[in-house]
């Protein structure tokens, strides 16, 4: 029972990632949110090796500390397989057909806040040691139909993200009347990861949804 949106927060002028995160954290704390530990969403990539004729396929294994017993396997077609966390070891057994892509692990890691029914997560995205951007996740727990609570969420989010938040993320907008599932969260993160991978931290921050 939750509905959740992930936004990328553009870096303010002249600030580095750490400072930007601190600015956001301060804003959230001023709203009265309390710290409730840390969170981490990470993604490993497996690449197929099925011969020269077969197209190269990628499988993304996403872990979310909110679902500690679960591994999400996402295909490029958008199919999300929700499985036990043992899937990680299973994928290693496919070595030869699918191989772990080295240095492609991307993760969003940071502080988790709670304010009443809202959960806010401010994560800094990094691939290995290099910082890629900031992702803000806002979750409204009591409701899982985005259509019926997005206005409320927007109002809340504008309070600390700024007026840039107008529309729900594309993925949420696409099925705004359907119940939200953890798969959608993973998909949102993955979309952001894929676009952040292409950018460099120094480059102009683009607003993604």
């Amino acid at each position, binding site marked *: 029972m939750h509905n959740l949106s992930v936004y990328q927060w553009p870096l303010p002028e002249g600030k580095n990632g750490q400072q930007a995160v601190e600015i956001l954290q301060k804003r959230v704390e001023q709203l009265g949110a309390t710290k409730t530990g840390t969170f981490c969403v990470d993604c490993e990539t497996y690449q197929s090796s099925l*011969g020269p004729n077969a197209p190269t*396929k990628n499988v993304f294994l996403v872990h979310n500390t909110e679902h500690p017993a679960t591994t999400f396997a996402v295909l490029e077609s958008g199919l999300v*397989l929700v499985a036990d966390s*043992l899937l990680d*070891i299973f994928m290693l057994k496919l070595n030869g057909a699918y191989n772990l892509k080295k240095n492609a692990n991307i993760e969003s890691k940071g502080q988790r806040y709670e304010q009443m029914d809202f959960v806010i997560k401010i994560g800094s995205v990094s691939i290995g040691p290099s910082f890629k951007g900031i992702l803000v996740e806002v979750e409204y727990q009591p409701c899982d139909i985005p259509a019926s609570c997005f206005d409320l969420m927007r109002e809340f989010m504008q309070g600390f993200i700024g007026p840039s938040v107008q529309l729900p993320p594309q993925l949420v907008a696409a099925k705004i009347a359907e119940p939200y599932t953890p798969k959608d969260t993973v998909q949102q993160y993955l979309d952001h990861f894929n676009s952040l991978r292409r950018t460099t931290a120094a480059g102009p921050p683009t607003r993604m949804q």
Partner: protein
Amino acid sequence: MAESLSSVLPILPAKEYYLQGSIHDAAKDILLHRLRGLCDCTESEPESFHDHEMVYVIRGVGIGGVQQMPITVRASQSLEHPEEPWHLRYVGNPEASGTGVDRSKSAMVRTCIDVGTSDDLIIFLQELGFRLDFEYVTKGYMFRKGRMKVTVSKVFRVVQPGKTDSIEPMSLSCLVELSLTAPAGQDAVADDMKTFAEQLKPLVQLEKIDTRRLQSI
């Protein structure tokens, strides 16, 4: 919180110790009675099962077009309990120590990885490039004795691919399997299994079967 959660998270990685045998249909009921007496939870009726198992295979190609060894995985689903998660299973080859080569071990050993998944497993495997090798339906009963699992199952051939209601039995016998998953290195459990298997004699002879030899016949 992490510590407390670790108790519910699965134990990695497991080895499966197993012994197999078969029994003729006519004698199956006697075996079931015997098992009811030997196993835990005797007060309840033996638990039945009805599963559909599909074996998928993929063959990787290394650098320079070298064909790799095919990798086999099993996807199974309970037809009696469709609400239960799909089960994706990787089963390794029997280890040399577990086959007939090494007489000192009491049971066969293989690596196994059990993953419960959501119900789009088949599409997932197909999209990954897996090819259906064969499929079958099993029906039977299972028992538990401590950490050991005993299944007495009848194997059915699926007449029309994908249709689990049109099936015909493979043989006039039932497959009896005694298995136990434990973290690697607990070889003592194999002896317990051996002791248990002894108690089922002469109804059924649970033995180490060298499947590689069977394949060469």
